[in-house]
C-alpha cells in the first residue's frame, strides 16, 4: 500500500459529436467552452468522431504537446469505448487509468429531446468527470494465465459444432450434456429445410466424431453443478447422474432392453415425444451417442421398490449393469465456456382453444417430425391416433410466438418448418394441406425458393391467426373432423376449414431452467428469457461475463444454419481467449489501509468470494487481490474508512456526486 501524491492535474477534455448522434441534441461547442473554463482543464476540444483514428490521434498528440496527465472523453457509454480511449492515452505515455468518460450519448443525447436540457445535463456529467479524474492515480491491469481447456455445455448441434471446431484446433474440450445422448432437437427432426437433407444423415457422423475425437471428453447424463472463478480460470463442478449402466463396458447391444421384465414399453418415450412407449431400461434412440443403455430410476422396479428379477443383469454379456452407481462429481478447470443449452418448445396446452391435449388429432410439429421419421414410432407413416391416414391437414403457425399472451417474439423457424412439413405431408400422404400464417418469413438462402416450390406443389396458404380448433360440426362435411375457424384476412371472411389433423408450429422458448443456468454462469437474460449477448450487433456471441460465450438457440430462436454459424463464432472467440494465453484483469480491486483498519472484521463475512481474511499478527483485514472481483461491498460496509476500491475510491465518488449536482 502506498500513498500517491501526484503532480497537479493537467486535464484535457474531448467532446465527441458522434456525427449527429450527440451534436444534434447537445450544443457541443457550448459544452467544450464550459469544460475549458473548469479548474485544471488546459485543453478542451470537440471532434466529429472521437473514436476514429484521427480523434484518437488528436488526444495522443495533445497529451504530449500540452503535457496532459488526465483525460476526460465525453462521448458514448464507457462500456463501449473506454478501452479505445485508454489505449489512446497509453499510446501517449499516460497511465490509461487517468481517463474518465462522460456518457453524453446513451444517457444524454439519445434520451433527451430538448436541446437546452440535454446540453445542461452534458455539462453536469462532464463537470463530474473533470472533478473525478483529478483523483485518479496510476493503475495497471494484472495479467493472469489462461487455462487452455474449454467447456461446452449442451450437446445439440450448436454444442457439437463448437466442440468439434475447438477440438480440431487442438484444444482440450469438455462437452457436457444432461440427456443420456447428444444430438439435441436436430436428432429428432426428419428432414431439414430448405434442402430436405436427412437430418440424421448429416448429424450422426458429427456425433460419432465427438465420441472418437481424442481432444474431446464427452460427458452425457451430466450437469453443471457449480461455476467459480473468472475468464481464463473457471473452476467447474460437474455432476454425473447415475445411469446404472457402466458406460465403459456397455456396447449398446440392447440385450438388456429385450430382457427387461417389462414385456412392453410402459413409459413415455421422450425422444418420440410420447408417441411411443419405452421400458425402464432403454436406448435413448437408435443413433444415440454414446450408444449406451440407461435405466430410468422413475420406473425401474429394482430402483423404485428394490424388488425385481433383474433379467437385465442376467442378459448383459459384459456385466455392465450396476445398480450401485451413485451420483458422482468431477472438478475441472477451463479457460473459457460456451453455453449451447438450446431450447424447449412451447406447451400448446396453454392455448386451449387450439385443443392440444383435448383432441387426439391435434399434434405439435415435433410430434409430427417423429411421425414422418422412418425411425419414428410409425415407421414413417403419417397416421392419426386411430391409425387412419389424414386426408386434410392444417398447419397453424405462430403457436405461442408473436402472441402477447405468451411470447411476443417471432420464433424464427416456424414458417420454414411449417413449409417443410407441408411438403413432407403432401409428399407422403397426398393429403390436402392448409397453412395458417400471419406473415410468411422466408428470408435466408434458398428459403424463398422453397416457399415458392411448396406453393407450386399446391399447398394452401390462408393468412390469418386461427381463432379456434373445434370438434363442433355445423355442416355435414364437418362431421367427425376438426374444424379450424379463422378469419381469412386476404378475403375478409371468417372461414371454417374441416381437417383430419392439426399441426401446431409451437414456439421455441427458453429452457425451463434458463434463469437458474443464467445465475450459475453469472450472465444475463434478455426480456424474452433467452441469454443476453454482450452487444446485439458487435458482440452477438459474447456475454457480459468475460470468457463465457453463447451458441445456438439459448441466445434466441434460430435455425440450424444460424446455430452452426454462431457455434463457429463462439468457438473462434473462445480460441482467441485461450490462444492469447492470458487475460487482463481490471484493477478495480478493493484494498485495506492497514494503518486505518481496526480489525473489526465487518468486511470478512460480506465478501462473496472469500477474498478477505484476518491477519492475526497485525490484527487487520487482508484482501487477496487475486480473489477480489471488485464489487466494493466491503468498502461500502467498512465503518472506519479503512477499505478502499481502486477506480472507485470514496473521494472519486464524492467528487462525482458533487460534480453532477453543481449548478452548471
Amino acid at each position: 500500500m502506498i500513498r500517491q501524491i501526484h503532480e497537479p492535474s493537467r486535464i484535457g477534455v474531448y467532446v465527441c459529436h458522434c456525427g449527429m448522434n450527440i451534436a444534434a441534441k447537445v450544443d457541443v461547442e457550448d459544452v467544450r467552452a464550459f469544460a475549458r473554463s473548469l479548474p485544471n482543464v488546459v485543453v478542451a476540444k470537440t471532434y466529429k468522431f472521437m473514436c476514429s483514428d484521427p480523434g484518437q490521434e488528436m488526444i495522443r498528440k495533445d497529451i504530449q504537446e500540452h503535457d496532459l496527465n488526465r483525460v476526460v472523453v465525453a462521448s458514448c457509454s464507457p462500456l463501449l469505448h473506454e478501452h479505445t480511449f485508454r489505449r489512446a492515452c497509453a499510446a501517449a505515455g499516460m497511465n490509461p487509468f487517468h481517463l474518465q468518460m462522460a456518457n453524453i450519448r446513451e444517457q444524454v443525447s439519445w434520451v433527451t429531446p430538448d436541446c437546452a436540457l440535454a446540453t445542461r445535463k452534458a455539462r453536469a456529467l462532464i463537470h463530474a468527470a473533470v472533478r473525478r479524474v483529478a483523483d485518479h492515480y496510476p493503475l495497471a491491469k494484472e495479467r493472469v494465465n489462461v487455462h487452455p481447456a474449454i467447456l461446452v455445455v449442451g450437446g445439440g448441434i450448436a454444442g457439437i459444432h463448437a466442440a468439434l471446431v475447438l477440438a480440431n484446433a487442438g484444444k482440450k474440450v469438455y462437452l457436457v450434456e444432461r440427456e443420456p445422448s447428444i444430438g439435441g432437437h436436430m436428432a429428432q427432426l426428419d428432414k431439414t429445410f430448405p434442402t430436405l437433407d436427412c437430418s440424421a444423415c448429416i448429424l450422426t457422423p458429427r456425433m460419432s466424431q465427438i465420441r472418437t475425437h481424442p481432444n474431446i471428453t464427452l460427458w452425457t447424463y451430466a450437469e453443471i453443478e457449480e461455476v467459480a472463478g473468472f475468464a481464463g480460470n473457471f473452476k467447474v463442478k460437474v455432476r454425473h447422474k447415475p445411469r446404472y449402466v457402466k458406460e465403459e463396458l456397455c456396447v449398446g447391444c440392447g440385450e438388456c432392453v429385450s430382457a427387461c421384465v417389462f414385456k412392453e414399453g410402459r413409459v413415455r418415450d421422450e425422444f418420440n415425444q410420447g408417441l411411443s412407449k419405452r421400458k425402464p431400461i432403454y436406448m435413448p434412440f437408435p443413433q444415440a451417442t454414446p450408444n449406451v443403455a440407461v435405466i430410468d430410476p422413475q420406473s425401474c422396479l429394482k430402483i423404485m421398490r428394490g424388488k425385481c428379477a433383474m433379467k437385465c443383469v442376467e442378459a448383459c454379456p459384459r456385466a455392465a449393469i450396476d445398480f450401485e452407481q451413485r451420483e458422482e462429481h468431477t472438478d475441472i478447470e477451463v479457460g473459457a465456456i460456451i453455453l449451447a443449452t438450446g431450447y424447449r418448445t412451447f406447451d400448446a396446452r396453454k392455448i386451449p382453444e387450439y385443443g392440444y391435449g383435448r383432441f387426439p388429432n391435434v399434434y405439435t410439429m415435433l410430434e409430427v417430425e417423429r411421425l414422418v421419421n422412418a425411425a419414428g414410432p410409425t415407421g414413417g407413416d403419417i397416421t392419426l391416433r386411430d391409425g387412419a391416414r389424414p386426408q386434410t391437414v392444417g398447419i397453424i403457425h405462430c403457436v405461442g410466438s408473436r402472441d402477447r399472451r405468451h411470447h411476443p417474439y417471432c420464433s424464427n423457424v416456424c414458417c420454414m418448418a411449417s413449409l417443410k412439413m407441408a411438403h413432407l405431408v403432401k409428399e407422403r400422404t397426398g393429403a390436402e394441406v392448409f397453412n395458417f400464417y400471419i406473415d410468411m418469413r422466408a428470408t435466408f438462402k434458398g428459403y424463398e425458393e422453397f416457399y415458392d416450390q411448396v406453393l407450386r406443389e399446391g399447398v394452401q396458404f390462408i393468412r390469418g391467426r386461427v381463432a379456434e380448433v373445434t370438434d363442433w360440426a355445423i355442416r355435414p362435411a364437418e362431421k367427425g373432423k376438426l374444424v379450424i375457424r379463422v378469419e381469412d384476412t386476404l378475403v375478409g371472411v371468417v372461414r371454417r376449414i374441416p381437417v383430419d389433423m392439426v399441426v401446431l408450429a409451437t414456439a421455441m422458448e427458453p429452457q425451463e431452467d434458463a434463469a437458474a443456468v443464467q445465475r450459475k454462469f453469472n450472465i444475463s437474460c434478455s426480456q424474452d428469457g433467452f441469454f443476453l449477448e454482450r452487444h446485439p450487433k458487435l458482440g452477438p456471441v459474447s456475454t457480459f461475463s468475460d470468457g463465457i460465450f453463447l451458441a445456438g438457440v439459448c441466445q434466441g430462436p434460430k435455425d440450424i444454419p444460424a446455430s452452426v454459424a454462431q457455434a463457429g463464432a463462439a468457438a473462434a472467440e473462445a480460441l482467441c481467449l485461450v490462444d492469447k494465453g492470458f487475460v487482463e484483469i481490471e484493477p478495480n480491486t478493493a484494498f485495506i489501509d492497514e494503518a486505518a483498519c481496526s480489525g473489526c472484521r465487518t468486511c470478512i463475512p460480506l465478501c462473496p468470494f472469500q477474498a478477505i481474511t484476518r491477519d492475526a499478527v497485525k490484527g487487520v483485514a487482508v484482501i487477496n487481490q487475486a480473489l477480489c472481483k471488485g464489487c466494493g461491498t466491503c468498502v461500502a460496509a467498512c465503518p472506519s474508512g479503512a477499505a478502499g476500491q481502486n477506480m472507485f475510491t470514496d473521494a472519486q465518488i464524492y467528487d462525482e456526486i458533487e460534480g453532477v449536482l453543481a449548478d452548471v
Partner: protein
Amino acid sequence: MSSNVTLPVAKEFEPRIVAFFCNWCTYTAGDLAGAARLAYAPNMRVIRLMCSGRVDPEFVLAALRQGADGVLIGGCHPGDCHYREGNYKCLRRFQLLCKFLRQMGVEEQRVRLEWIAASEGDKVQKIANEMTAQLKLLGPLRLQITPRVNGRPRAAECPPAPTKGVAP
C-alpha cells in the same frame, strides 16, 4: 443565524436526482434505454459503480446534502447479482437507511432502490420519469444545513485529500 440552504426556485421546480447504477445490470439498462431512444426526464444523473453493494449510505446522505432532491439506487434483480449477493447487501443497508430517513422527515419517494435488469431499458425510462414527477410534486428537499465556519479539513465536510492506491 444559520444559513439555510434553499434551492433556487425556478419557474417550474426541476428536481435533481443522483442515481447510483451497478455496472452490469442497471447501467447497461441505461445504455439500452439510450440505444432504444427511450426519452426520459433529464433530471437524473447517473454515477456508475461496479455493484449496488458499493453504495454506502453515506453516498446517499452526501448527495442529499449536496442538493439532490432524490436518490435512486439501481441494482440487478435479486439472484442476478454479478457478484452473487451485492444487491442483497445493498437492500439490507437501504432498509435501515430508509428507516432513518423517515425519522429525518425525508419522504420515502425521495430515496429509492430499484432492481433493473440489463434488458429493462424501459424500466429506466419509467422510473426516471416517475421519480421526476413525484419529486416535482414533493418540491425541493428542504434540508436545514449549517456548514462549518472554518475551512479546515475535517472528515465530515471535506473529501479525504490524499488518494490511496495499491502499488501496481
